[in-house]
């Protein structure tokens, strides 16, 4: 049988820690001397012997006789190893309860027979489904306090059955117990409770079937990052679902690029061709693909949806209420995204009386919430790929919620929006045209010479029978980007579109030359992602004084006069390229020499490789 992780939950003081302590004792899982040690500790505190001191190890927990934080303890039985996770029942420590429960396969839910179902009993029952622990054993504890009354047991059992059903969970057993005395804990058949002939708590736990979380069959890997080894870029991550195999075609989202797995890598080195769900893997891709942390790798036939909006169910842990318009950072998979609350659709009342549209959620509420993000996100719903649908919300450095993505929303939703295959590939195009497509991305300060050089390069390449085209700032803004202004967001979008268009030109076999200041590294990195290996960053360099002296369009003069706010080079920042493919310093070179330098580079890096390739054809 297999290891089982069980979290003990329920209302404060209903006896979770005591039941676990007793269970460990009865199964011989306490080390020698532990009982004597606990007896001494109890005497020192002047209290009756406390089994809960086995788990409540903190001084403050023992002093107050309350579990504060979750803990774990390993229990061996001949049939199965069990990891017991004790979780606090006090409302104030709900974050610790969900922390413990989120690591469990099944739950042991305790109810005090005397006090009956409490507020935290209901809350915990409700949270089990959200956390992903739907299988439950219920212990109706402290039966001695109600004179081992069968009627009391039956009534609580009926109430719990209804409660769990509404919560989307189900119990495999309802065990009447007296944990302090060990009745129905490890051994069943308490003489005080002849009305019950079911299993003990231990027997019920051992009988739980293996957990197999329902999930999709397609490959899912949330990329953790790229490890460089020698000249290889090894993509690393853990397989959430499906299978990864060398030679297989995969899809990278949100870019929706197809790529082929070149090889799997392990250390110590050995041959490895496939890897399955659960494995932490490293692999390389064939060809010029740029993969980054946060990307999702999937099979081509079933990819995550792409959307900017989604519905989620969450447990709100923040001190202030959650309201529409609030902005947070969300972590899911390996991605961190900015999200905004569009609507708090409903708070799910712990009595399961739908409060309807309440508009906000308070601390410890479970709520259905619609989020939106300025980014297009690769999204999977919790029913299909729970490992990628679970998230935390961050407000600054504080965790304010945990939850699951229920479903992506909006017009962009498509699990199957997969690139259509061209019937031609880059080699075929290059064979006809005589060179591969490329993006020559010129970046530099205003008046550094980008446009001048770009236009000359375009003509010289044309004369050399190459397909080349310049995407120039003003020209693009007059058409494609005529809806954009000069706000920071619009500037980013302007560059993003140019990057995508340039990548399409390159894909068609054209040498696209872009002449944009493009001052931000992040924007240039995005353009590089779009075009992959076809991208060549060319830094047209000139010091600010030289540029201002040239000032062919009079922009520096206007900026100095205050007419152009955020003018790069005067009031706006320019982030120099760190590792451009080529640097051309126009404060040292003439325009002619600069053009020759760029042409030499294009000849060597763009044109010659295709020639060599063509020459090697049979």
């Amino acid at each position, binding site marked *: 049988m*297999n290891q089982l992780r069980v979290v003990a939950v329920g209302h404060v003081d209903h006896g979770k820690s005591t039941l676990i302590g007793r269970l460990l004792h009865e199964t011989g899982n306490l*080390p020698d001397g532990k009982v004597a040690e606990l007896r001494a500790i109890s005497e020192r505190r002047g209290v009756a012997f406390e089994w809960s001191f086995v788990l409540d190890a903190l001084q403050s927990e023992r002093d107050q006789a309350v579990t504060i*934080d979750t803990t774990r303890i390993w229990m061996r039985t001949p049939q199965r*190893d069990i990891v017991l996770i004790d979780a606090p029942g006090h409302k104030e420590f709900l974050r610790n309860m969900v*922390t413990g429960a989120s690591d469990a396969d099944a739950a042991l839910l305790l109810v005090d027979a005397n006090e009956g179902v409490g507020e935290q009993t209901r809350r915990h029952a409700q949270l089990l489904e959200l956390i992903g622990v739907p299988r439950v054993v219920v212990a109706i504890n402290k039966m001695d306090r109600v004179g081992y009354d069968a009627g009391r047991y039956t009534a609580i059992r009926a109430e719990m059955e209804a409660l769990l059903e509404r919560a989307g969970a189900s119990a495999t057993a309802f065990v009447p117990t007296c944990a302090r005395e060990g009745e129905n804990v490890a051994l069943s058949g308490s003489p005080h409770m002849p009305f019950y002939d079911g299993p003990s708590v231990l027997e019920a736990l051992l009988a739980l079937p293996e957990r197999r979380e329902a999930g999709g069959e397609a490959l899912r890997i949330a990329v953790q990052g790229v490890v460089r080894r020698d000249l290889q870029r090894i993509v*690393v991550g853990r397989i959430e679902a499906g299978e990864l195999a060398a030679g297989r075609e995969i899809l990278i989202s949100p870019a929706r690029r197809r790529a082929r797995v070149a090889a799997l*890598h392990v250390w110590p080195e050995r041959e490895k061709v496939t890897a399955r769900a*659960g494995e932490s893997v490293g692999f390389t891709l064939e060809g010029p693909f740029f993969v980054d942390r946060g990307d999702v790798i999937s099979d081509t036939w079933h990819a995550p949806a792409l959307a900017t909006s989604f519905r989620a169910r969450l447990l709100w842990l923040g001190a202030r209420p959650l309201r529409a318009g609030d902005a947070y950072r969300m972590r899911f998979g390996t991605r961190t995204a900015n999200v905004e609350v569009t609507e708090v659709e409903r708070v799910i009342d712990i009595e399961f009386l739908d409060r309807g549209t309440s508009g906000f959620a308070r601390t410890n509420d479970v709520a259905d919430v619609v989020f939106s993000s300025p980014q297009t996100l690769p999204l999977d719903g919790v029913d299909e790929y729970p490992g990628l649908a679970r998230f935390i919300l961050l407000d600054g450095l504080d965790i304010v919620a945990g939850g699951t993505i229920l479903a992506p929303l909006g017009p962009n939703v498509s699990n199957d929006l997969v690139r259509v295959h061209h019937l031609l590939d880059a080699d075929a195009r290059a064979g006809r045209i005589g060179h591969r497509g490329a993006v020559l991305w010129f970046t530099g300060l205003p008046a550094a010479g980008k446009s001048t050089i770009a236009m000359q390069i375009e003509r010289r390449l044309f004369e050399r029978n190459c397909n080349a085209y310049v995407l120039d700032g003003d020209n693009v803004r007059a058409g494609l980007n005529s809806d954009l202004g000069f706000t920071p967001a619009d500037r980013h979008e302007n560059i993003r579109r140019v990057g995508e268009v340039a990548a399409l030109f390159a894909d068609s076999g054209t040498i696209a030359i872009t002449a944009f200041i493009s001052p931000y590294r992040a924007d240039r990195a995005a353009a590089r992602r779009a075009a992959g290996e076809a991208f060549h960053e060319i830094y047209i360099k000139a010091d600010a004084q030289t540029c201002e002296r040239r000032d062919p369009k009079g922009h520096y003069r206007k900026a100095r006069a205050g007419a152009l706010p955020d003018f790069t080079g005067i009031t706006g920042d320019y982030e120099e390229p760190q590792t451009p493919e080529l640097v051309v310093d126009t404060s040292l070179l003439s325009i002619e020499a600069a053009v020759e330098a760029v042409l030499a580079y294009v000849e060597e890096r763009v044109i010659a490789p295709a020639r060599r390739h063509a020459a090697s054809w049979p």
Partner: protein
Amino acid sequence: MLRGRLPGRGRSALLRPAAPTRCYEGVTLLDELEARSIAILREAYFRVSPLAMLWSMGKDSTALLWLVRKAFLGSVPFPVVLLDTEMELPEVYAFRDELARAWNLDVRNELCPPETSSDQTLPPATRAAARKTAGLRALIAREKLRGVIVGIRRDEQSTRAKERVFSPRLPDGAWDVKHQPAELWDVYHTDVADGQHVRIHPLLDWTEVDVWRYTQREEIPIVPLYLARDGKRYRSLGEKNITVPIDSNAATIDEIIAELETTRQPERAGRVMDHESEDAFERLRTGGYM
């Protein structure tokens, strides 16, 4: 440490399924633990910088070092640090030097301040152990570390059982055990406030016997003091002034595993500081000890 077993019964099967979210055939508990630890190490590396790992040369942190090499395809992309009180056993220093050479490690030796700088209200052995807390604090301050990887396990000690995988620390390195943040599934919160650091615990879910089985399976080197000679061996390897060997005839890893199957003694029985007072270890850990 509260691990034992039903006396006189057979040992449970080694083949077990994966963690809750990922079950599949033929995968052992060790495979699952390994995959999870590698994922944690990669999260730490890609999210937290500057980063360092503590290496005491014990079985746990040496197995962890092996996992680091698996995670990063053979290399160890951050420094590994010994908090040195100059009280380790000679075999331990010899092991460090040998492995540092063989594995090409960037090993740093952080000499810990003298005991007089520790909290004088702590019991004697605990006070001696607290030198490592002071050494760690100095290391973090000097190197401006935002993350420290530590090979502790939940089953070792009951306050460690309450740890998080990513455990944020107060500016002085203290562990605010009463106000730990939530840690949900394996969606780790890796951000660190300026001037603070996070402890990263990739072995938290491993047990003592898991580490031994893994050490055996992967053929990871160990300090020979773990193996019995003349009826004694170190079950937990600490500094010579505050650690004693246990009675044992386990002279191979197989025999250690068999011994652990039947023992009812806690792992840290040989650590003097754990037994000085009820709260000694809690005070040590909340002060910033590993």
